[in-house]
């Protein structure tokens, strides 16, 4: 993206939709598929890929629950169980839960901001390709049979080559480091887009809460993900190059790994929670037909949660024998997070409480289900932050129950609220309301039936990550109940997603704003055209569509606070606005579709493969092509401006 100083020309010259479609649309066919930089196409790819990984991770969960349904189960052997367990965690956290917010963000952020694309469209394409290819890289381990098996947390020294000599954990360590590139460039893209491309008038106090959620998430990613990349890289250096970062027999430290992993791992919980609360806020507002209660408090709560979340990682390590003074500090910080979470929950409750009318449409049901499940997970979260109690329940099924309540309640339910809320916008179709409601109830009952019994299993001494258990410990019936619940939950996922897939082909056409919502994405058609908006909308409130007189077109406003906003934008351009108040400053030309992001992603994959098979010539060739591709990518952009 490059800004050009251009004096606004007098008089609006809005190009007609045909010429806009021509400049912004992709070429048809495979070429268009590989070169597209359209944030909507990339967003949909992210969403679809992430949901596919949700089902893959779900099948792994089903296998585990089948094995644990009865004592001395024989469905999976210990080796297969450990592989499935490792890939379930890795897939759900890294390949489903984190990237799906990049999907929502990519699709929605430019629309909510009233602009035409992300700030760096090609970087955006790259971040998707890297996500897809790193996921494919990790799953390629299934072809070799050397599937990661050291747990999704990959604690050393178990994951050192001495104990797991195959390339199982190399797939994992290289894969997560590779994937970190996707998450990081995606976060930078969101931050720049949100800082500089908001509609004129959309100052920070008029920013939709979902945008706040993505912005906060992006900053967290920037500070948290490097730690995971370092953890993974050092692990691979230990494994492939015989270094000793984590090797206590040569002066390394096994705990160093745990610190690095959890410095990412704890904020990660909030990286998938904060944007989810953004979705919940949007949905609750729309279906309560009113502005969220105490918008400012909610924003402060989001940002506070992000800050506190960086000071909690040691609560995953209370049992490692740290001095208890240190543990107490992290314990206090951990329980503090209940306050911003409490503020958000009561803001949602008050929003509903003082609403004139609430519509319990499917997205709203998921949002309310989220509050219920998340509150339970939050309560056990406060409990496990208490050091002595944690020493009993950590690494037991109590913790498994706790974090599934938090993650499914706090993140997956809002994700499904979001999928059902924006589906008509994205697909341009309406889904079957009844099937969506059935899907919700199956998921709601399933999650409680699966995970509530696991609290008791933990209290009864059942440790995590066991592939089997003996008879006569009192664990049998609770495990069976949990397995039944898991299959109900799975049925819920199939019903919900199946309903959306069917609607894609059979659903009736969706109007532009089926829910009567307030934000800019609903101002354009469903699905939106390649260029999003024919003109640039101007906003003066938090709820542009609610506060606009009927029939008024937001893109035809030419004046804001006495400032003339008319601008010529017949080219492939977007508006750039100032960081704080979003006053229009200038326009910028956007890059066109390109093969280079795909080539760069592919070369990164080849570099990962080279590290895996330890073929340095192969690696050097890939680095060479990568460098050429990066130069070509940027040279082309120069030409266009």
């Amino acid at each position, binding site marked *: 993206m490059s800004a050009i100083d251009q004096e606004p020309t007098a008089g609006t010259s809005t190009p007609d939709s045909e010429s806009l479609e021509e400049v912004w649309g992709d070429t048809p066919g495979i070429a268009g598929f590989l070169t597209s930089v359209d944030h909507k196409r990339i967003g949909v790819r992210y969403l679809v890929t992430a949901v596919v990984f949700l089902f893959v991770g779900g099948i792994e969960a089903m296998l585990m629950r089948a094995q644990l349904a009865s004592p001395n189960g024989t469905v999976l052997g210990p080796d297969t169980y450990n592989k499935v367990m490792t890939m379930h965690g890795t897939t759900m956290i890294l390949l489903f839960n984190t990237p799906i917010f990049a999907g929502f963000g990519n699709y929605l952020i430019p629309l909510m901001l009233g602009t035409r694309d992300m700030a760096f469209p090609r970087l955006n394409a790259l971040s998707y390709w890297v996500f897809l290819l790193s996921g494919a890289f990790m799953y390629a381990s299934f072809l070799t049979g050397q599937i990661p098996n050291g747990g999704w947390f990959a604690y050393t020294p178990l994951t050192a080559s001495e104990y797991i000599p195959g390339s199982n954990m190399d797939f994992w360590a290289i894969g997560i480091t590779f994937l970190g590139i996707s998450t990081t460039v995606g976060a930078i893209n969101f931050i720049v887009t949100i800082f500089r491309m908001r509609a004129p008038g959309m100052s920070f106090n008029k920013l939709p809460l979902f945008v706040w959620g993505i912005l906060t998430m992006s900053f967290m990613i920037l500070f948290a993900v490097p730690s995971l990349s370092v953890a993974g890289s050092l692990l691979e250096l230990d494994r492939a190059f015989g270094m000793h970062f984590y090797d206590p027999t040569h002066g390394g430290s096994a705990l160093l790994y745990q610190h690095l992993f959890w410095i990412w791992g704890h904020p990660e919980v909030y990286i998938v929670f904060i944007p989810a609360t953004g979705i919940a806020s949007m949905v609750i507002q729309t279906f309560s037909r009113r502005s969220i209660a105490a918008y400012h408090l909610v924003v402060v709560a989001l940002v506070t949660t992000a800050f506190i979340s960086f000071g909690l990682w040691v609560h995953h390590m209370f049992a490692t024998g740290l001095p208890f003074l240190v543990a107490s500090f992290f314990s206090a910080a951990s329980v503090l997070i209940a306050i911003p979470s409490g503020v958000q929950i009561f803001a949602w409750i008050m929003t509903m409480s003082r609403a004139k009318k609430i*519509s319990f449409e499917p997205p709203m049901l998921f949002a309310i289900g989220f509050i219920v499940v998340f509150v339970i997970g939050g309560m056990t979260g406060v409990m496990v932050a208490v*050091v002595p109690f944690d020493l009993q329940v950590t690494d037991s099924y109590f913790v498994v129950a706790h974090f599934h309540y938090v993650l499914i309640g706090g993140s997956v339910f809002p994700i499904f609220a979001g999928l059902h809320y924006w589906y008509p916008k994205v697909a341009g179709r309406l889904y079957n309301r009844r099937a969506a409601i059935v899907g919700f109830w199956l998921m709601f009952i399933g999650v409680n039936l699966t995970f509530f019994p696991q609290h008791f299993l933990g209290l009864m*001494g059942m440790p995590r990550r066991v592939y089997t258990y003996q008879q006569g410990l009192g664990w049998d019936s609770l495990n069976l109940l949990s397995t039944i619940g898991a299959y109900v939950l799975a049925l819920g996922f199939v019903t919900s997603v199946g309903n959306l897939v069917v609607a894609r082909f059979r659903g009736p056409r969706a109007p532009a704003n089926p829910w009567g919502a307030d934000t800019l994405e609903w101002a354009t058609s469903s699905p939106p055209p390649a260029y999003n908006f024919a003109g640039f909308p101007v906003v003066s409130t938090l709820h542009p569509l609610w506060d606009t007189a009927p029939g008024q077109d937001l893109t035809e406003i030419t004046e804001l606070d006495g400032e003339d906003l008319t601008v010529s934008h017949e080219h492939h351009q977007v508006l750039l606005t100032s960081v704080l108040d979003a006053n229009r400053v200038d326009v910028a030309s956007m890059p066109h579709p390109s093969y280079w992001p795909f080539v760069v992603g592919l070369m990164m994959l080849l570099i990962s493969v080279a590290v895996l098979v330890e073929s340095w010539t192969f690696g050097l060739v890939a680095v060479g092509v990568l460098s050429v591709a990066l130069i070509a990518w940027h040279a082309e952009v120069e030409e266009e401006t």
Partner: protein
Amino acid sequence: MAARMAQGDRGRFSALRSATAPLVAVAVAIAVAPACSGNHHILSPEGKQAKSIALIAWFMFISAGAVTLLVFAALLHGMFRRHRTTRRGEPRRFVVGEQTWIIAGGVALPLVFIGILTAMSLHGLPSEAKPDAVAITVVGHQYWWEVQYPGLGVTTAEEIHVPVGRDVDVTLLSDDVIHSFWVPDLAGKIDMIPGQTNHLTLHADKAGTYRGQCAEFCGLQHANMIFFVVADEPSTFDAWVRSESGAAPAPAPGTPAADGAIAFQELPCASCHTIKGTAANGTAGPDLTHFANRSTIGAGTVPNTPGYLGGWIADAQSTKPGSLMPPIPMRPDQLNALLAYLGTLK
């Protein structure tokens, strides 16, 4: 669309309520369930630290349950209680503002809850062992527990005998990967980390056998890394120490056990296992000097009976795939002799 939404309201109302009710019932059940305790349960503690933790746990379950119910009540109220207008048709005025409610529910309520919790949590922290404590070193191995009594000359595995009513200072080490030492009835868990020395104080108030299990994922057989803490009355404990610290009894000549003692030295057994009083001094596997006194084989995997033992010696991998004990080819008569010999190791 709006009309359809309005129609849906009432039906959803009752449906939601009926689903929340069982949830609440289960939440209450959490407080009742531990009363009928099974094998082990952190809420039916028999050890000093476990007892103070159980007290904190009860307090937390009850107060968290109360807070949860309060939040759910507020949620249900928010969802279904509509204050449209007053009787005279004017828009209703609220005495307490939204922000006040949010701060009361979101800041004040959790602050009180977590404030009390933080104060309580200082209580259950692990304490240093008293000077008269029995010192025990437990070393974690993939996938078994080596147990040493440094001052008492005892080395054993999987079963840790402790005297009732006395502190036991357990030094926790690992020989390979990270394990975690957890006896739910007696105390919270502490990890065993290679390159690091951790300590845990056990204190059993009542004689009995308490099951423990590895709580940190340590590889293929993490699930079958079980141990037992046997709390004995002091006199029984002293007798146990006297018996265990001695060498293994030599089998009477001419018996099958004597043949077994020879087979043990001839076969690869002795290179991994120690039997005090014989030439066998391997340290890769558990010390077998008083093996017949132990109740399980393979760290709690199967009971210590001749049938299971025979299967274990012939091919441990079929009982516990991934354990470090390799299949050992031997003649049937050697196997029978070994079984006889191991049965005498009291």
